[in-house]
């Protein structure tokens, strides 16, 4: 599904991703773990098309389509979802209005009809309940006055309603207490399917205790330095990144 080949990328001329290759087949969950400054967030921004994050060499394809030549919103319509480490507050734009506008914009770009208001509301209500966020939260400005955990759960609701083919979750577990972590993990597990893939970008192992990855990649200094099964995460937790590198 996602194929990254020898990707070089960075910000303002500084190379941060230095020849990264990764193959994420449909239906699999992979985790990328790495120390601070290894390029985890840069990778998520390059993949999602944030301004200022430029790929200088290599290729990234989603289902064979060249991801790097698309605008950010086109990547979303192509099926990419980026769950942010720090979801942004948008005062004055209600959560439901935002989500419905986003969903319909994606559908339009894919040549699909708009979702009916009733279907959308039913779906949103169901997911809000599943991720334990009230409809009052859904009517408020996007993430305005939300706690850190509520913001992350809101990301999960958006993901569940938008139904991406590839979800890129950047440090979704940070700032979550144990209950919220379980809610988020359950949501991811519920959404796992043979035609959907997840790339979990994380610093710690704890999310991986609940969401079992098919593969774990270690990102160090802009490159994947090791790839293994779920046991690699436990090894990292035990020995640290320094131990793994050695």
């Amino acid at each position, binding site marked *: 599904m996602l194929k990254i080949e020898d990707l070089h990328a960075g910000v303002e001329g500084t190379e941060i991703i230095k020849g990264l290759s990764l193959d994420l087949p449909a239906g699999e969950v992979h985790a990328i773990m790495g120390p601070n400054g290894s390029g985890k967030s840069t990778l998520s921004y390059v993949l999602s098309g944030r301004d200022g994050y430029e790929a200088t060499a290599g290729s990234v394809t989603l289902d064979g389509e060249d991801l790097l030549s698309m605008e950010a919103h086109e990547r979303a319509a192509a099926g990419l979802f980026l769950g942010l480490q720090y979801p942004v507050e*948008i005062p004055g734009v209600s959560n439901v209005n*935002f989500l419905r506008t986003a969903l319909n*914009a994606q559908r339009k770009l894919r040549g699909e009809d708009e979702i009916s208001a009733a279907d959308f509301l039913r779906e949103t209500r169901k997911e809000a309940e599943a991720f334990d966020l009230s409809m009052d939260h859904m009517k408020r400005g996007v993430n305005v006055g939300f706690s850190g955990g509520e913001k992350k759960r809101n990301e999960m609701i958006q993901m569940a309603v938008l139904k991406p083919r590839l979800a890129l979750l950047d440090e979704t577990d940070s700032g979550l207490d144990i209950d919220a972590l379980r809610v988020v993990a359950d949501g991811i597990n519920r959404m796992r399917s043979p035609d959907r893939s997840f790339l979990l970008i994380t610093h710690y192992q704890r999310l991986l205790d609940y969401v079992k990855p098919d593969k774990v990649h270690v990102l160090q200094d802009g490159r994947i330095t090791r790839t293994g099964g779920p046991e690699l995460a436990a090894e990292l937790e035990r020995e640290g990144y320094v131990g793994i590198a050695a």
Partner: protein
Amino acid sequence: MTLPQRLDELNLPRRHEDWRWTDLSAAEAALSASPANDAAPDATPYLIDGIEGPVLLFVDGKYVEAASRPGPVRVEKGVAHDAGNGPLAEIAAQHSLHKISLSGSGQRVQIVHIATGGQAHLDLQYVVAAGETARVVETYAGGGESWVNLALSASVAERGRLRRAVRILQDAGAWTETVNGHLAADAHYGSVSLIGAAAAVRSEYDFVLGDRAHAQVDGTMVAGARQHFDIVGRIRHQGVGGSSGQTWRSVVAGRAQASFAGRIEVARGARQTDANEDVKAILLDRTATANAKPELEIFADDVKCAHGATVGELDKRALFYMESRGLPPERARQLLTEAFVADAFEAVENADLRAALGEDARRLLERVR
């Protein structure tokens, strides 16, 4: 005689600080233009859906009784009064005055002004009796080479309430207003202005507040191309326990300019005054200009006066967040700018009016994005 000569003749302080951002060239251009003499003026296209009530139609500064439905509102012509301070008000006062008694009107009164060309001076006086509530929506439409010059004196007696909404939708020309408000003890005044369509706008207001009186003057400016808007506000707290708020939001694009200068004066003895000024502007282009100048003059103890002014660009993080969810960049900018200006309509209680202002703002923002 040119407008500057006219102003000089009236010994008007054009070089005064309050005039530094004002551009009267569009008003001046209108002096040599003349009205189009529309045969059958009609207020209907400018009325807000869902709002029932009296309708007063003015064309080029003249009351058109035949096309109005005044209901219980009394419109008296030619009653002499003090036009209050301000050079433009003095010019307007040389034309005929319309005293509009809003007391007992009950419903929201819609006043529509259509400009067809040339200068149109409108000298209005709103009178609200003690304990009464009056609501007015003013819509300024038309355009062409016109200058609409409004002098409004609003007096609200004790415990009275006046709500005023102003939509400046005329598609060209100049629009100026000088508002002098007198709020007696426990009186309330609230206004919201939407400024977006004319080439040049100057809104000058001066409110004098008695004991426990409250004035809320809010608005939004949407300026693009070479539009030139400025607000010169003055709120004078003269009684004990008065309060005031001013919330202004501007979105400025192209080579346009939007300015706000707001002075809050707290007189000796006006204890427990609570005044707030909140001014924010977003620049969509590097060539656009926003000015903000808050001023506080406090001669009393035990008062709360706060002011905040920011000028910035659209939040890039928010834009990316929205795009990453699938919104095209122009749609993301639209949602952000609409949400930004909607702050100024928050105090509007009537849903139909709030929706109409939102719709007006949306159309205006579409033109400048």
